[in-house]
């Protein structure tokens, strides 16, 4: 994948949201529903940023405003310094909507080609570029099948391909793993990490907080439209005053000896536990299918 030259003085903000409020009229008498409430946020360039929160917390509304699909009631939003209401703010943005549903009468190739042409990918490069991204998301074998026959996971991947076809600097993924099985989820996570290594900025939303914890550099958590927490993942979830040591199983006598050794030096052994593998990891190991290789694009 061709990586856009990233300015060395990171982090520049890819998205800047200032004092953003969005109200929806929910009936004719003008009763309002506040979907986003005075949100101020910056998504640094080159990072994977998680916008988290329960259903109805305002994540999708925020994304639609970033994409210019909705107009803010109050406040402003800029993408690479361009107000999000302007068409040119979307030049460098790729978007994968939640539970995507594409033109089912097109084949995978036709679909990505269509979006590539809309995004102005030069004709001379279009065919190669389409093949490249379809290959990158691992759909080459199904590229000529109609999108209507794709599974949920395949739809997510073809959605990712169309989001990447014009090589954008910012990729917005709305609930990319919702409804996708653990294998598909793991594959998508892998692809997102690859995008990061290419210097892309990725904004990802999820209501499954744990699922994307591993891949995000920073997260913001919304609840009822309000920002309740924002920061680097490591800072937010890591406990700075503790450490975990993992060793092979010790007999009770040696464990006691170790405890004594620690106490003698003023430390406390807080817990002795059996480490557990995560269920999704167990599942992946059992079906002996590791997340597929995305391949170089």
């Amino acid at each position, binding site marked *: 994948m061709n990586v856009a030259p990233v300015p060395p003085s990171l982090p520049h903000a890819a998205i800047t949201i200032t004092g953003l409020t969005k*109200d929806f*009229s929910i009936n004719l008498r*003008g009763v*309002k529903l506040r979907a986003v409430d005075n949100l101020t946020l910056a998504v640094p360039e080159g990072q994977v940023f998680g916008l988290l929160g329960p259903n109805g917390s305002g994540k999708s509304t925020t994304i639609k405003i970033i994409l210019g699909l909705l107009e803010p*009631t*109050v406040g402003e939003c800029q993408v690479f310094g361009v107000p999000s209401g302007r068409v040119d703010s979307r030049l460098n943005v790729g978007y994968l909507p939640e539970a995507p549903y594409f033109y089912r009468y097109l084949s995978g190739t036709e679909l990505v080609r269509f979006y590539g042409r809309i995004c102005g990918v030069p004709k001379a490069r279009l065919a190669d570029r389409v093949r490249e991204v379809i290959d990158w998301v691992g759909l080459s074998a199904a590229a000529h099948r109609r999108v209507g026959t794709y599974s949920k996971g395949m739809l997510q991947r073809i959605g990712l391909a169309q989001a990447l076809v014009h090589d954008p600097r910012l990729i917005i993924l709305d609930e990319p793993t919702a409804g996708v099985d653990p294998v598909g989820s793991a594959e998508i996570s892998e692809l997102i990490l690859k995008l990061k290594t290419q210097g892309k900025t990725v904004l990802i939303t999820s209501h499954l907080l744990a699922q994307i914890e591993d891949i995000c550099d920073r997260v913001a958590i919304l609840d009822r439209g309000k920002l309740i927490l924002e920061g680097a993942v490591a800072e937010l979830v890591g406990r700075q005053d503790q450490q975990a040591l993992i060793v092979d199983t010790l007999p009770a006598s040696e464990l006691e000896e170790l405890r004594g050794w620690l106490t003698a030096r003023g430390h406390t052994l807080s817990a002795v536990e059996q480490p557990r593998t995560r269920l999704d990891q167990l599942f992946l190991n059992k079906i002996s299918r590791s997340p597929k290789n995305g391949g170089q694009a």
Partner: protein
Amino acid sequence: MKFNLARLRPLLTGSVVVTILAVTGLVVRPLEAPAWDWVRARQPALKLDSIQGALGQGLTVGLLGGFRAIVADFFWIQTHSVWEDRDLPATQTFIKLVTAIDPRPLFFWINGSRMIAYDMPNWRIVDSGGYNAVPQAKQRLIDEEQATIALNYLKEAFNYHPDSALLHVEVANIYLNRLKDKTNAAEAYRRAALLPNGPFYAGRIYAELLRKLGRKQEAYDWLKQTYTKLPKSVNRSLGISEFTVDSAMAPVVLERIRELEEELNLAEEKRFVP
């Protein structure tokens, strides 16, 4: 402030749309009006009161919406079917309904009048017991009644087709065939022959009727005058086809002229020189 504005937005949008449409309507009027006048001039006014009862609301809206020709066609097919059943009241009603809906096609008038003048007397006589049972005088009366209805119907047709030679021919035929009235038939054929699209045979029949009525000099003058205008040879550049020449029958007309000259005992030097 912003909240109130947002609330008024759909109303504002609606007003803008209506205003722009009204302005557009004004601006395009010069384009539309002449075209509409042209279309209008070719659409005789609908006499809704006479047909509304027969049609029902759905079809009336169809008529107003511009589906006149097709609604009339549809009722003509209906006419055809009741005509086949020899249902006199229904046929008569449908014939009038069709031309009330769309008086433009001559076809409806001509065929309608033929059904009234030629078929209906037959049905009535058959219904009254047949040609053998109904006395001649009664048969004659029926013929006259139907012929009068047909002539009145055709009179209405002239309101829409004042220059139609074929209508005059139709009138002439009814006078001649149904009423045995040669004088009125001759007059109707003459009118047909004088119209620019009048068929050649109308002029010939007119002369023949004059001859039978004993007005031979009139017939002779008419034929002489006609003969000079008849196409005698094919001329494609003037649009004179073989068919036109054949139907003009100039040699036959000349033959009739000669016969009349004989009957009028005209001197050689006074005879017609083509």
